[in-house]
Structures are given as C-alpha cells and as structure tokens.
C-alpha cells in the first residue's frame, strides 16, 4: 500500500490509500478525483490522465517510456514533471507521492 496525495486544480486535496501494482490513474478514477478523465481507460492512448509529479517525487517515479513521451505531446501545458498517471504504478517506494492535476485535460 502507498498513500497518494492528489491535488486538484482548485486546490482540493485527496489522500488515497492505493494498492501496489495499481496505477495512479485507476486510484483517481475509482475515488472520483476530479480532473482525471482517462478517456482510453489506461491504454496510454489518449493523454487525458495527465498529472504533474511533485518535484520531490520526480526521481522516484522515473522517466516516461518513449510511448508515453509520444502521448504527452497531446497533453495540454506539458512541463518537465508531466506524466500520464496511467503509466505510474503504485509501489511501496511511492508511499507519500504527491501529484497535481492540471486545469484541463484536452
């Protein structure tokens, strides 16, 4: 298990206990965190689950794979700490992870 903190665009904070092996996107959708649309359902095919990983967690979450980089081209207002949350798998090392949700997904 790992605690993940989602900060919505309006500042609302959602603390969610996430099971290992699930994705950051799934946990957001299951808990109705606003702003994660995930149109394609987690196939890394749509760029509507875009999040900004808190600077302190960029190293722990790692670099996006080339396919994710390609999809990030379609995301809005991409920053160096941008990730697609369907591609971040929960693991014990990510306990405490903080992600921010952009103003809009597309």
């Amino acid at each position, binding site marked *: 298990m790992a605690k993940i903190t989602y900060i919505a665009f309006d500042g609302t904070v959602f603390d969610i206990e996430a099971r290992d092996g699930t994705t950051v996107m799934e946990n957001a959708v299951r808990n109705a965190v606003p702003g994660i649309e995930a*149109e*394609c359902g987690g*196939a*890394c*095919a*749509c*760029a*509507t689950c875009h999040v900004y990983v808190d600077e302190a967690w960029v190293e722990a979450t790692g670099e996006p794979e080339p396919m994710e*980089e*390609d999809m*990030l*081209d*379609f995301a*809005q*207002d*991409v920053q160096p700490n941008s990730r697609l949350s369907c591609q971040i798998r929960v693991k014990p090392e990510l306990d405490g992870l903080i992600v921010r949700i952009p*103003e*809009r997904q*597309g």
Partner: protein
Amino acid sequence: MSETIEADVVIVGAGPVGLFAVFELGLLDVRCHLIDILDKPGGQCAELYPEKPIYDIPAFPIITGDGLTENLLAQIKPFDPTFHLGEMVNGIERLEDGTFRVTTDADKVFHTKVVVIAAGGGSFQPKRPPVPGIEGYEGKSVFYSVRKMEAFRDHDILIVGGGDSALDWTLNLQPIARSVTLMHRRDAFRAAPDSVNKMRALVDAGEMKLIFGQVTGLEGEDGHVSHAVITDNDDQEHRLPTTRLLPFFGLTMKLGPIANWGLNLHENLIKVDTEKFQTSEPGIFSIGDINWYPGKLKLILSGFHEAALMAQAAGRIVFPEKKILFQYTTSSTSLQKKLGVA
C-alpha cells in the same frame, strides 16, 4: 445542397458497435448508411488504440483495435453498407409522417425511417491548445486543419506538433509561405523519419525555423494574429511574427450537436430502454458507449448485444408488414444466403 439520400437506417458513428449494427440489421434485410466524423471506420478502436490489444472480446483472447475493425468490416461486407466518412451529423428532424431528415456538415441530407446513434464518446474534434484567447482567432488566423492551401500563401505560419500532420503540413506549406516555423516541445518526432529528415534539411538550408517550446500567448486584433508569444524550454519568452497558427495536438471527444437533438439525457449520455434500446424519441435508437440505462457497462460486447436487440425493433419500423422470424446463422439457409455462404 445535394439531393436527398433515401435510407432505411442511418447509423451515426462507424465504431465497432455501429459496424456490428450493420450485421444485425443486414440479417433482417435492412441496408444501412453510416456517417462518421473520422476519415476511416473503427471509431475509438481506429483513432485511439489501433495497435493496442483488447482482451475482452468474446472468443478473441487478444485482438488489436485495428484487428477488430478489420474483422467487423469483413463480417458486414455481404450487407454492403454505404460509408459517409469525414462528416458530422448536425441535425435530426422528425417529419410529419414520423420519418427523419438527417443533415451533415458536408451539406448531405438523408431521409430515413430509423436513426441509430452509435456515437461512442461523441465526435472527435481537434484539441485546442491552452492559449488564452485562442478562441477569438479560430477560423481567421488559427486553423486545426488545412482545407485550402491558398489560405496560407504568403503568410508567416507557425505549426505546432511533432506528428505526421505537423510535419506533412510543414513540408507542403513551406514553398508557398512567407515563412514557416515548426514548434514542438522536444527534439523527438513521431512523424515518418523521411518527413523529419526533409524538415531538418530545410532548417539547415535556412528555409524554415525549428524551435522547441510552447505557445503561451497570441497578439493581434479582430481575430487576426500578428505575433505568437512562445516560451522556450529554457523558460525564455519570445515574440514570433505569425499570421497563421496551425496547432496539431490530436483529437478529443466532445458530445457535440447530439445535445441539441431533443433526446432525454443522463449526464451527457442518451437514455434508452433495455428492450429496444430506443431513446425518448420513437424511431431513434442509441447503442454503445453513448447510451445509458441502469447497470450500463461501457464495453464493446455490451454494445454488440444492444445492436442485436435494437435491430429487432428497428426492423419492425422499416418493414411494418413483415413478420420477423428469429433464426440462427448456423441453420437458416435464408440467413446463409444473405451472408453469401449458402
């Protein structure tokens, strides 16, 4: 305005569920017209995940979006549907005799007995980059596709994106533009390597510019852009003379005109019954991801089931005199004749 196309059934959306509806209606001798905003059949399977595997299609342990589309097209071939691609349905209007007039943004008019809305997540539309005030420039200086190249002649063109659309239009417009700048957020392109090489050669020859960054503002008046404000990857702002902006950020799904067709909705989905999958308007059916009923699951297989039941009800509207017999494709020679196998 072109002449009216006479139809039994018009299906709005050519995704997997719309395609399978052609099969189920075809077994009942109903011929279909399909209209889709994409330039190819397959809907989300073709646009969002052509190469990604799907694991929950019955009897296919694994199949890609493209594979599913190809198989469905092969399955419905005997029923010879007519495709109207690259068109969006604008309006559905009920006529006095209970039939419908369906119009598209390509000025096509259909007269049909039944409408089936199988529009999935809505219509695919170009993504708008998050630039303040960009709406005010759309259609005059900002375009999401190139319909007429002449509208770009002698302009300072800024093209944004890293895929084939961005690269193709960079190469095609460069000879007629006053200047062309291609902007992408990183020095890696998804486009065909050959196009990327050609683009780099033009940059080396000083014929065009390539920059890495994002558009963060637009300056201009009355819908006419004069400068684009660009923030490069070192967070420096620049003003680039620009009179045409072409952003290529892919497509997103919007409900679009469906909201205006007078149907009862449930959170932007079309309410249907679970016997006929008919909407609040008799003769207008809705199947697949776009519909809603208690217990709805947005699965392709649910859409297939909905198509089968819808077809029974729609068949009765198209042929009110005819008695519909329930038959199996395994044993019915009449169905096998229709499928071209008997």
